[in-house]
């Protein structure tokens, strides 16, 4: 995965480019530096100079696109991602929120069978600051540096990457894994990439209550004997049990998914878990500079 996305001028197709959001973000991504070579939409033509095709296979055949950003409504995500995989694309970022979990389940299973990296759904996207972004990541928070960021939340990552950027700490890579319980790429799967990524000197993890992703990450840190510093902030500690807090995955169920369970596991694995955004900012800046 890392080899593919670090490729210079990685050619990207935007699925859903003829929609309002698709058009706006195709242009925003291109302006940032992303090599948007094609779009897939309702009719053949072009959007702001980007050629538009009716399906992924045609877009790939004509332009050699290797990665896709999916910007289609939630109930269309399943068919769009499967279409990209069938067209041979092996890196798909899906920003759409509200994808039914059983659809995500089917997509993850197909992605794993085919060796496809699927990022999302319900993510702000991913990026390599200074070079490209796939998704919504705001330019004001992107700054090239050596901190690898992985986050369930878009806005919490915007806030912290912006605060850190203001203090001259930038990112080597930024991956929003998304706030859904069933997702393409989980924290633990990114850790081996960050381990061998020379540009990455430390890792920032922005987690949330619910699920077991943070606990799985802790186990992965230990299993890999991961040496780079890991800084963590966890949101949702004061949420009531059984209530979904905005993100479908952010729900405490009995003893599962609690802040205490996650904090304990990560601390035991050697990560630094902070209690507030300010404390995290201070801690990361101190360690990085």
């Amino acid at each position, binding site marked *: 995965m890392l080899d593919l996305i670090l490729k210079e001028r990685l050619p990207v197709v935007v699925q859903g480019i003829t929609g309002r959001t698709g058009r706006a*973000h195709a242009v*925003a991504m291109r302006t940032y530096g992303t090599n948007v070579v094609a779009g897939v939409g309702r009719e053949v033509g072009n959007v702001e100079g980007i050629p538009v095709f009716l399906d992924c296979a045609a877009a790939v055949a004509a332009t050699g696109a290797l990665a896709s950003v999916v910007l289609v409504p*939630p*109930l269309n995500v399943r068919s769009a991602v499967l279409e990209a995989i069938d067209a041979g694309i092996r890196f798909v970022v899906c920003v759409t929120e*509200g*994808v*039914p*979990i*059983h659809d995500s*389940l*089917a997509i*993850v*299973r197909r992605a*794993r069978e085919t060796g496809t990296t699927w990022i999302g759904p319900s993510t702000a996207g991913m990026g390599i600051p200074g070079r490209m972004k796939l998704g*919504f*990541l*705001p330019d*004001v*928070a992107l700054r090239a540096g050596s901190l690898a960021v992985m*986050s*369930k*939340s878009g*806005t*919490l*990552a*915007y*806030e912290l990457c*912006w605060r850190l950027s203001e203090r001259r700490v930038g990112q080597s890579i930024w991956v929003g894994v998304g*706030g859904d*319980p*069933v*997702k393409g790429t989980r924290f*633990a799967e990114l850790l081996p990439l960050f381990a061998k990524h020379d540009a990455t000197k430390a890792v920032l993890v*922005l987690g*949330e209550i619910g*699920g*077991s*992703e943070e606990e*799985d990450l802790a186990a992965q840190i230990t299993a890999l004997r991961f040496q780079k510093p890991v800084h963590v*902030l966890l*949101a*949702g*500690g*004061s*949420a*009531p049990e*059984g*209530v*979904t*807090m*905005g*993100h479908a*995955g952010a*729900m405490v*169920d*009995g*003893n599962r998914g609690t802040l205490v369970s996650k904090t304990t596991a990560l601390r035991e694995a050697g990560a630094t878990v902070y*209690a*507030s*955004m300010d404390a995290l900012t201070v801690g990361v800046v101190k360690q990085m500079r």
Partner: protein
Amino acid sequence: MVLLEHDAKVLALVLGLRVPPGVMAETTGSISADRLPPGPWIVKAQVPAGGRGKAGLIQPAATIEAVRSAVQTMLGATHRGHIVKGCRIEATVAGMREAYAALMIDPAAAAVRVMLSAQGGVDIESTHGVVSELVAPEAAAIADAVRRLTAKFSPSMCAAFADAFAALTRIMLECEATLVEVNPLFIGDNGSWIAGDLKLMIDENALVRRPVLAELVTARRFAYPEAALKLATGFDYVEVDAEGTIGLLTTGAGLSMMLIDELRAKGHRPFNFVDIRTGQFRGNPTRLIQVLSWIARGPKIKVVLVNVFAGITHLGEFARLFLEALEAVPDLQIPIVARLIGNGFDEARSIFANESDRVILEHDLDHAIEIVASYTVSKP
């Protein structure tokens, strides 16, 4: 979202799950012998959280008076942050052994976990004696797993599990559930079975294509206020503290959650959680008006904190819509601290410049929180 046991059982019955006959009571006045199934009964408080038995929220009752008294005690009680608004009164199951059966989506494995045990009971969370297998989310694969997992059981137990799991599978696939858990699953010597308790977690994202579930959530919006509201409006809003003093108007689930955590840690009382999704406004102030009017109803509200990190949204447009919304909610006569950052900040600043007596604009979140805090202190 977790369905209340009563609603889950009503749904599951239609899909072939056997459950003891029962009714819902939301007042003691509605309880009479002709409405109840044959006794003795078990009275179960309806809240979407576990640990009811240990909290005294599941009580046996041999007489109608005992049923009324149990319901009386339970209604209005708070359990893990939820107020009991109703009780299920159910016929008692006797003379059967307790087992356990569940289907659960395992996100890391991207598979369905089939879990079962010949012993049931309230301490199942320790998973002692539970055997499980991960399989594809398909009926045939689940049935095969159940056969393998029950291979050493008696023929009548095997038959009971096979039959019960067929019902659980229908529920999981047709309701797009993420968890279907029966604990206890009562099994008789002859292979008969019936679900003592049922925990059903469904996917809010699937409601739009599951009309039966959408109707349930809408019809019972007092039981599922957050889900019903999201279905109706398209965004998330949760009242987290009825006595809260700080109304929040924020976007982004993660940052909004973190903000509530930090306010609480500093001893403040936020009234609500909201992820208003500024990116979906499309020039329409409706969502802003809705949230401001709900905040205005908070009896102890002193101040509103707005937090928008505009990666994509234009803050100039946000500021115009926000003022329009304020006009539309004349009940809300308290200070507004608006922490805005990103796209179009300068335009937002000039728009708010004429409203400086009502809206305090701030760039730094921690500083905005300090200003908000100064308004929540009661002045002598």
